[in-house]
């Protein structure tokens, strides 16, 4: 039994090990992407600064940080198959005796670590461009909400990761279309109420909608007691409805993602799609 657990832990660690060393070897690109994430976020946050509107600035900063976190998490998992096609290693990963659940769990652990590092660096950078303070924010509550939403985004990422298996040419493109759609409908930088009426029901299907709504409340966005010098973060109890929705979404999307991935993998083995490089 211990042997099986040790083996599973090593197999999970393999993906973190690989991700860490690839990050190290591609460090100049990692810096470039982080720089781009920071400048993009700062450019958005400065819209609030230019309007001399603290509430708007806070809304944009929270949106930028959460989108960096969630999109990195999603992207790292969703693009994992596409990356392996580009490297030419996909067949070797798929013929290793790793249960697909362990494979995707390993990818998710690395993606989570990567998301935390990128979001932290963007946060530190944003503090240089804005006078936003974190004092008074319910940061513990934010972490709980992020952990809950991580499950849902892992599920979405796993489902999207199947797309490059399905179509070597179009799959990677489709993952970005899906990511862009989430950005549009989830109210990252604006309330979902400003979306056209026909899109608004779709926003209810995005886990990011609930993550953003809950985190904004926990940080104190919109609370009359919030001032530029001190935030009035709400207690965790006030976001229980969003937490429940996120956990239910995670509980549904993770198994659904694994099921979809498994079906697509089997189809690819029937059609010979694993061989083709992107």
């Amino acid at each position: 039994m211990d042997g099986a657990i040790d083996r599973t832990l090593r197999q999970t660690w393999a993906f973190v090990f690989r991700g860490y060393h690839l990050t190290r070897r591609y460090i100049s690109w990692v810096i470039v992407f982080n720089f781009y994430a920071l400048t993009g976020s700062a450019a958005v946050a400065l819209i609030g600064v230019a309007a001399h509107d603290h509430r708007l600035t806070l809304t944009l900063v929270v949106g930028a940080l959460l989108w960096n976190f969630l999109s990195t998490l999603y992207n790292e998992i969703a693009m994992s198959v596409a990356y392996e096609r580009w490297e030419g290693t996909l067949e070797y990963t798929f013929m290793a005796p790793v249960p697909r659940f362990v494979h995707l769990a390993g990818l998710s652990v690395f993606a989570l670590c990567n998301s935390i590092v990128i979001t932290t660096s963007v946060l530190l950078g944003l503090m240089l461009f804005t006078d936003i303070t974190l004092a008074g924010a319910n940061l513990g509550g934010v972490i709980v909400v992020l952990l809950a939403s991580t499950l849902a985004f892992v599920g979405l990422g796993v489902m999207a990761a199947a797309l490059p298996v399905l179509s070597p040419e179009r799959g990677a493109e489709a993952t970005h279309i899906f990511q862009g759609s989430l950005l549009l409908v989830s109210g990252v930088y604006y309330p979902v109420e400003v979306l056209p009426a026909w899109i608004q029901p779709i926003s209810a299907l995005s886990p990011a909608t609930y993550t953003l709504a809950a985190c904004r409340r926990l940080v104190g966005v919109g609370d009359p007691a919030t001032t530029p010098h001190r935030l009035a973060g709400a207690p965790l109890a006030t976001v229980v409805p969003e937490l429940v929705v996120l956990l239910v979404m995670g509980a549904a999307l993770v198994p659904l993602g694994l099921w979809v991935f498994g079906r697509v993998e089997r189809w690819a083995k029937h059609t010979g799609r694993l061989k083709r490089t992107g």
Partner: protein
Amino acid sequence: MVLPAIQVRDLRKRFRKRRRLRKATASAEWALGGVSFDVAPGETYGLLGPNGSGKSTLIRILSTLLIADGGEVRVLGHRLPDEQTRVRRLIGRVSVDAAFYKKLSARENLLYTALLYGLKPSVAEPRAMDVLERLGMEERTFTVPLEEMSRGMQQKISIARALMINPPVLLLDEPTTGLDPKSRRDVQTFLEDLRRREGTTIVLTTHDMAEAERLCACIGFLAHGRLVAEGTSELLKRAAEAATLDDAFIKLTGERVTDGETPAAAAKES
């Protein structure tokens, strides 16, 4: 009675080609059209055939990367694809293209594989080092990124990767294609040594007749997805009344190994 290490019975596979705005249709030609053979434990079995003959398709089915349309495959008694997880623990594969993370060093690539197979790096690393030493590689190359290595060196590391998991069955898909004569000889000598010392069962696909004669106890000629002849090199030469294995292949299959492929046949493999 000793059971074969690999049993292949009436194996069939064909690929569907997608036409624009139409549903995928089955290719008229079979990539594998009813192939049957056995490989005894500890035997090196050679599969010879031109590009598009079905060699790589066969290796991919044995590697659990493809699911056959019909027939039966057993590896050390385990049926594919039903027992693919068990089979994956028993096989190592070396393909014609050394598929690695090119930016990572040999050591990083090998440790990643060891972890992927659930092995302790402290156990797997010395094994990989031993293989590399026997293949004539120096220890200092261990930390060099793969992209800075020659194709011959990359292929040796690919062999070390397949062997570090200590598999009883080794699937080699044109492992020496594109190697210089010295590297080719190193690999061939190593494979002979491996079979002798470890009793590893090897399936080897190759275009190289001399290599097949040197390494394989039994050789199968594959053409258009069919096994047209099988036996020792002497038996095949006798059956074809040919002086060389090359001549025997041409007589028995009606084509050349290296330059006889038609565009249609080559497309079938891709």
